[in-house]
């Protein structure tokens, strides 16, 4: 009796041992890469943000000096404003234009599918390429593409990117242009889920188009809108390539955002400590935003 009970023991232990190791073997490459190229840099960034980094003299602990320096620097304060304005403008503009596109291009007809395919092109195009395109469209003389359009309306040429007053808005327009078709796809998926019989019933009750959109369509696509807004907000916070390619932060720092500022500080001025502190601030805000949104969405799911 005892013999039969004990013999499977070690064998099972060996099998369990093998079974326990196996998933980790499969996970190892991914975890290793994430560790070395994501989490280690993150930790290193947090660590360096407390130091005055001096390449040959050794790093010096400065506590929170980098943070106070970054947060009190007026160029960084301006950059916060630009980042928020750009993020909010791009997110809201992207949603408004994306919804309009989705409502316009909803349908099964083959011609509509082809139009959707064409309208989606900005999303798959690399940001750097889009930047070059828009630089040319924003050509400041009166025979530039967009300015000649304005000329037809009888308006003077606008030096879009060369004027500190217009550069940020011009960047925002490009951001909306890139974001709107992406939102369109998500909102279209939401629109497809609307129960058609509700539309029919509403029509029989003589409901106006506006009421129909407000009371049937909007509630149905609200989850999609929530997702789109979250994605856009997080993307807006870490906006870099758009600005770097289009204006490089200029003219006169009028389009400098948080990340271009940090980049300049770290790579051009070699202030690794300050740049790290700036990155950590951005990281904290991003994490906070993501966690809050996830919490709100989970609560929404339950309800």
């Amino acid at each position: 009796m005892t013999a039969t009970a004990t013999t499977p023991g070690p064998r099972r232990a060996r099998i369990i041992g093998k079974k326990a190791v196996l998933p980790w073997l499969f996970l190892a490459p991914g975890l290793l890469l994430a560790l070395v190229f994501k989490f280690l840099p993150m930790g290193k960034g947090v660590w360096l943000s407390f130091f005055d980094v001096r390449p040959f003299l050794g790093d010096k602990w400065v506590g929170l000096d980098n943070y106070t320096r970054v947060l009190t620097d007026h160029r960084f304060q301006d950059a916060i404003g630009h980042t928020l304005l750009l993020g909010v403008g791009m997110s809201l503009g992207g949603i408004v234009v994306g919804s309009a596109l989705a409502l316009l291009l909803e349908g099964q007809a083959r011609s509509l599918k082809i139009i959707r395919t064409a309208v989606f092109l900005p999303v798959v195009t690399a940001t750097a390429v889009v930047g070059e395109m828009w630089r040319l469209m924003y050509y400041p003389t009166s025979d530039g593409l967009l300015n000649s359009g304005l000329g037809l309306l009888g308006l003077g040429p606008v030096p879009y990117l060369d004027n500190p007053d217009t550069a940020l808005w011009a960047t925002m327009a490009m951001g909306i242009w890139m974001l709107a078709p992406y939102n369109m796809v998500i909102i279209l998926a939401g629109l497809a889920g609307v129960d058609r019989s509700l539309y029919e019933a509403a029509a029989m009750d003589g409901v106006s188009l506006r009421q129909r959109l407000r009371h049937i369509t909007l509630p149905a696509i609200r989850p999609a809108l929530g997702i789109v807004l979250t994605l856009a907000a997080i993307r807006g916070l870490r906006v870099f390539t758009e600005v770097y390619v289009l204006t490089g932060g200029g003219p006169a720092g009028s389009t400098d955002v948080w990340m271009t500022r940090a980049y300049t500080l770290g790579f051009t001025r070699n202030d690794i400590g300050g740049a790290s502190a700036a990155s950590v601030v951005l990281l904290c805000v991003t994490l906070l935003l993501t966690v809050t949104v996830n919490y709100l969405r989970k609560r929404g799911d339950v309800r």
Partner: protein
Amino acid sequence: MSAPAIDPVRTPVSATPARKSAGKGRTTPARFDTALGWSDRPGPAWALRVLLCLLALGVFAAPFLTIFSGSFSEKASGSTLSFLPHHPTLLNFQVAGERGIWDYFGNSLVIAGGGLLLQLAVCTLAAYALARHRFRGQALVLTLFMLTMMLPEEVIAIPLSLVLGHVPVVGVDLKGTVWGVILPLGAWGFSVMLLTEFMKDIPTEIEEAARIDGVGELRMLWQVVLPLCKPALGVAGVLGFIMIWDQYLLPLIAAKDPTDYTVTVALSILRTDPEVGSGVVLAGAVIALVPSLIVYLLLQRSLVTGIAAGATKG
């Protein structure tokens, strides 16, 4: 256009079938198929829709035409953009070639190809473990992979460039090599999530049958699970390619000198070169644009499904 057009409408959560017109038995667009109640019969509303569609095409698609035409124009500048090239020529591409655009393009191809292969391999292995095994710390691993999505290159750029210059423990300098771009792209949380969710839906009976036949874990993944995952691999592949091709900051910080740049980063070199005109920059932009365009037109269904899935899983 012969490529299948994007069709998010076909992948709804709970779509009702299109209304059947009485008697005929085939589907026709009806008044209640769209939120705005567009009609397909000629009339004022129909004309308005056509007009608005043309406007949308003009705003979102026409700029691409001007870019293509500009790249083939003999004298292109910001002030001579149009839909048809003036005096069509390949001179711009020739000059761009002399400035090394094809070398940059080669860098891009190596990075996109290698990066995508590594990403798919790494993420498939991880997803298989997460979907098919129960082990301690599973939730933690999942959270770690999700965190990788919240740590984009922008946020960790400065310390990442230090790590690339001297990888800890092994002490290798990855700067100036394609590995400096490829390796950081390996673990992409989005692909791990997507593939995990997909693998969970594959019935385990197939695997159990194979296991009884004595199939080992690696062969199981390669010969049984992967062939069933083709749709998900397609989605992860398209989105991964577009994500890698769009990389800007990573190739910038991983490069030792400009010859290491990818084609998207190299556009800025062309632009700041005083001797080349806008036409050459446009030729470079077209070269950088074509691969993602091809991938998109071939696999757009996967792309759209992926965006909708990624949005709901987030």
